[in-house]
């Protein structure tokens, strides 16, 4: 009864499993939101999801494309101003887990989502900080999810957008950050955790069918491997079916025109 699943699917499932039922999670858009909602729809029905646009306790039935889709608000316990979200709920210390995506990480789980190349004259201008730097600073702990490849797991970030463990060891304590910082980085190849002492990312779990060489080839620094490296538990049938149903419903919803657009088609076709 072997289930076939994709690398993205085991990444999402592995991340979802790290969210305990009942905790309060500040969710980034994209991969974090997908994993957090999978957790909510499987083992963590009382997971409290907070989105930076204002919804508290959001329970969307499809994945939001943007961080402020309408269903986040209509399904929430309440919706507050974006200012209040950052001031009272994040900075106020009410978030257990901040869940972030990233364009690039380094060995201390510092994150770049700002530029490739020099800031003043970038090769690639990325979207920028958004809510991530203060989530990374203030959430009780942080999960990071991204696909692992030589462009994303880099020796040195061109720009530190959001702080992970800085230069390692007790860096976070030294600069007075309230939260514990990243406790895991979940990728399509495995799961990494900061070393208890040095805070350097260490591969602690490798997804089934992935080789260590493959992980090393997709990491631009000399990757530390845990002596007790495990093989990740594959997704269960239930996890896969919930995830696929969620993605299917989401794809359908996102392929629809906005509710205003179709009613106007006749009238507005000027081509």
């Amino acid at each position, binding site marked *: 009864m072997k289930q076939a699943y994709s690398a993205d699917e085991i990444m999402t499932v592995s991340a979802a499993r790290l969210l305990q039922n009942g905790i309060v999670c500040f969710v980034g858009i*994209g991969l974090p939101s997908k994993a957090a909602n999978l957790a909510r729809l499987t083992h963590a029905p009382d997971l409290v999801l907070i989105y930076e646009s204002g919804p508290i306790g959001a329970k969307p039935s499809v994945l939001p494309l943007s961080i402020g889709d309408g269903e986040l608000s209509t399904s929430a316990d309440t919706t507050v101003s974006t200012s209040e979200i950052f001031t009272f709920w994040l900075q106020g210390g009410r978030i257990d887990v901040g869940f972030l995506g990233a364009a690039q990480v380094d060995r201390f789980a510092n994150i770049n989502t700002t530029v490739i190349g020099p800031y003043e004259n970038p090769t690639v201008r990325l979207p920028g900080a958004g809510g991530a730097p203060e989530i990374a600073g203030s959430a009780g702990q942080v999960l990071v999810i991204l696909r692992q490849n030589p462009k994303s797991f880099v020796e040195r970030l061109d720009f530190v*957008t959001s702080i992970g463990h800085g230069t390692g060891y007790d860096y976070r304590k030294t600069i007075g950050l309230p939260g514990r910082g990243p406790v895991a980085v979940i990728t399509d190849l495995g799961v990494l955790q900061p070393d208890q002492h040095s805070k350097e990312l260490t591969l602690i779990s490798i997804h089934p069918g992935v080789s260590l060489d493959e992980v090393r080839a997709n990491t631009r620094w000399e990757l530390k491997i845990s002596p007790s490296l495990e093989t990740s538990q594959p997704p269960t049938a239930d996890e896969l079916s919930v995830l696929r149903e969620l993605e299917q419903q989401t794809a359908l919803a996102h392929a629809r025109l906005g509710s205003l657009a179709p009613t106007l088609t006749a009238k*507005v076709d000027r081509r």
Partner: protein
Amino acid sequence: MAKIVSISDAVAELIHDGDQIACEGFTHLIPFAAGHEIIRQGRRNLTLIRMTPDLIYDQMIGMGLAAKLVFSWGGNPGVGSLHRLRDAIENRWPSPLAIEELTHAGMVQAYNAGAAGLPFGVLRGFAGTDLPKANPSIRSVTCPFTGESLAAVPAIRPDVSIVHAQRADRRGNVLVWGIIGVQKEAVLAAKRSIVTVEEIVDDLNAPPNACVLPSWIISAVCLAPGGAYPSYAQGYYDRDNRFYQSWDKISRSRDDFLSWMELNVMNRPHSDQEPAGKLRI
């Protein structure tokens, strides 16, 4: 008291070349109709302030209206890059774009400070990041009780803030609901303000403690049904996620972008009678 006028009159009267303008709406209620009118009226040398530039500023930047952008997250939500924004920063096309970059937490404190009549906002932010190197207006203050150092950002005080909302009453009081973002803070921080609305009604029927913008803090209220399309107006129409996805292709090339703007914005003046949900892919 707000005057109830057309969008074109409001833009003509209240927005000047060189102004600092803030078009807000966090994914929800983005004032596209007003933004398009600003493009049509050909304002120049604007400082564009917005937490998430979104398609509306991608269009303004691509049309060469902007001298500077103040922002905290400049992507196409859930899709990828804003290609016009990238082209301006990476290649200075159609003109160089100065940027002042914050985080969401920093920008909300800057708006709060503007709305609160304070010269700066305080937050626990930016620590360990390269943002203060990129933006010299990120500074610090020391707590006079604990000695702790905290981040400080200068107040945002736009010349004009522009937001969209669900409805106004005939006196110009405005009700906003759902994801309210920084709509209220942006209006209160600004010297002048334009609010476009889905409808104008006899009675707001606002719930107690609703987000209401009283008429007397608004310069102009404009009827603009569909005025947030392709973003959305809760209770009126959904976000056109498909259009957001299509924008990636439309905006990737300069030529495609310009012809799209010509067809959908430049040659289509806004009319109060016609919902704005008419963008062609």
